[in-house]
């Protein structure tokens, strides 16, 4: 095998392609069940297995998996309470589902030959839109036009406000973009990097004496993989913390 062929075979973008496993459409809109849908389902099933099957015994002294479920629960509950206050706890089920789903999806995506659900901008953007819609709808429902105080920081003189209010509005509007791109780009970049280094290994192995160098990119992959594990957890955390922060804005719009 010559190096060019090997490089072509290990295309790092290929892993993000969608394969329609069960093509169908509803009212002319394509709703095929794809490999991405399959792994969404697996991530959801993972969450269900952790949170429902492992807790079915309701043991006072928990087993390992139940202890994990409880840790996750208390972690997210603490995060919501700290960031969005006690009133924010009404969004706890939403934030928890978001965090657990993204976390499990990210972790499943790190297993070779799986699909990373969160490497699709449309998925992360859908999440971001839901979060921002929730913030806007709840803010308007709770405070009416008072929600617009969000854009008017307290105790700032009028001339500064003229500049500041547009900035606040722009920053608010860019939230869904930054929220979705952060998660998407992190997962995407990590997977591309891993695939590229994997491609190096294949190329080196196919290049005669150069095969002796093949362990070098493998070591790099091991290190990167550890980093990606961190990124998978961290990005799920960042996404849900920011969700809490934005929800806090909806609950307490005055700065």
């Amino acid at each position, binding site marked *: 095998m010559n190096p060019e062929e090997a490089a072509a075979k290990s295309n790092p973008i290929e892993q993000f392609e*969608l394969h329609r496993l069960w093509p169908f459409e509803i009212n002319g809109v394509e709703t095929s069940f794809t490999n991405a849908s399959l792994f969404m389902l697996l991530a959801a099933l993972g969450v269900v297995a952790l*949170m429902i099957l492992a807790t079915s015994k309701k043991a006072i002294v928990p087993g390992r998996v139940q202890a994990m479920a409880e840790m996750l629960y208390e972690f997210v509950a603490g995060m919501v309470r700290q960031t969005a206050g006690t009133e924010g706890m009404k969004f706890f089920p939403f934030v928890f*589902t978001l965090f657990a789903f993204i976390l499990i999806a990210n972790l499943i995506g790190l297993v070779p030959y799986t699909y990373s659900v969160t490497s699709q*901008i449309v998925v992360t953007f859908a999440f971001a839109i839901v979060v921002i819609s929730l913030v806007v709808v709840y803010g308007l429902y709770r405070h009416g036009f008072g929600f617009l105080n969000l854009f008017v920081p307290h105790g700032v003189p009028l001339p500064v406000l003229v500049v500041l209010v547009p900035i606040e509005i722009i920053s608010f509007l860019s939230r869904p973009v930054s929220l979705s791109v952060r998660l998407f780009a992190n997962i995407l970049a990590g997977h591309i990097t891993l695939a590229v280094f994997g491609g190096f290994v294949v190329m080196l192995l196919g290049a005669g004496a150069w095969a002796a160098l093949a362990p070098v990119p493998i070591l790099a992959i091991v290190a990167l993989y550890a980093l990606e594990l961190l990124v998978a957890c961290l990005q799920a955390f960042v996404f849900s913390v920011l969700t809490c922060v934005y929800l806090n804005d909806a609950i307490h719009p005055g700065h």
Partner: protein
Amino acid sequence: MAIISSAFAAEGEQTTHETVGAGEAHHEGVFPPFQTENFAPQIFWLVVIFGLLYVLMSRIALPRVGGIIENRGAKIASDLGAAREMQSKAQAAAAANDENLRRRRDEAQGIGREAQHKIAAESARQRALAESQAAEKIHAADERIASAKTQALANVEQIAVDAAASIVEKLTGAKIDQAALAKHATSSN
């Protein structure tokens, strides 16, 4: 080196595809995450799956886990309360026991003291009795001694009179009237 540089070239090529979004790709040559025809199926399944997951979490999983944690907290609190109650009971029992012990000890000391007093009184009484008896005996003996002494003294007088009479008789050969001598002796006494 040639291999590695070609690999970098390949990577460089791909990065251009990413940024430009027009590569050799399989479907339309668009970077897969940006292929718009992929959006609808993903959103549809995301809504379905995430919606179901949200319902399962908010209806079943979270109330259950919350309940487990709450139950555990309540159980620990009630167990601690029971333990605290038992402890206070044990302390009360220990205090009652101490009190009982103290009272019994006082009682025992009282009994001992009483017995001691009784014994002391008894021995004092007996000693007094013995002393009075002894005193009586001493008194009787004294009397006896005194009577014996007076008797002895009377005898001594008689003996002296006799001796004086016999001495005078031996020296002078004259008989002395013993009655007169005894009278004299008694008056000179």
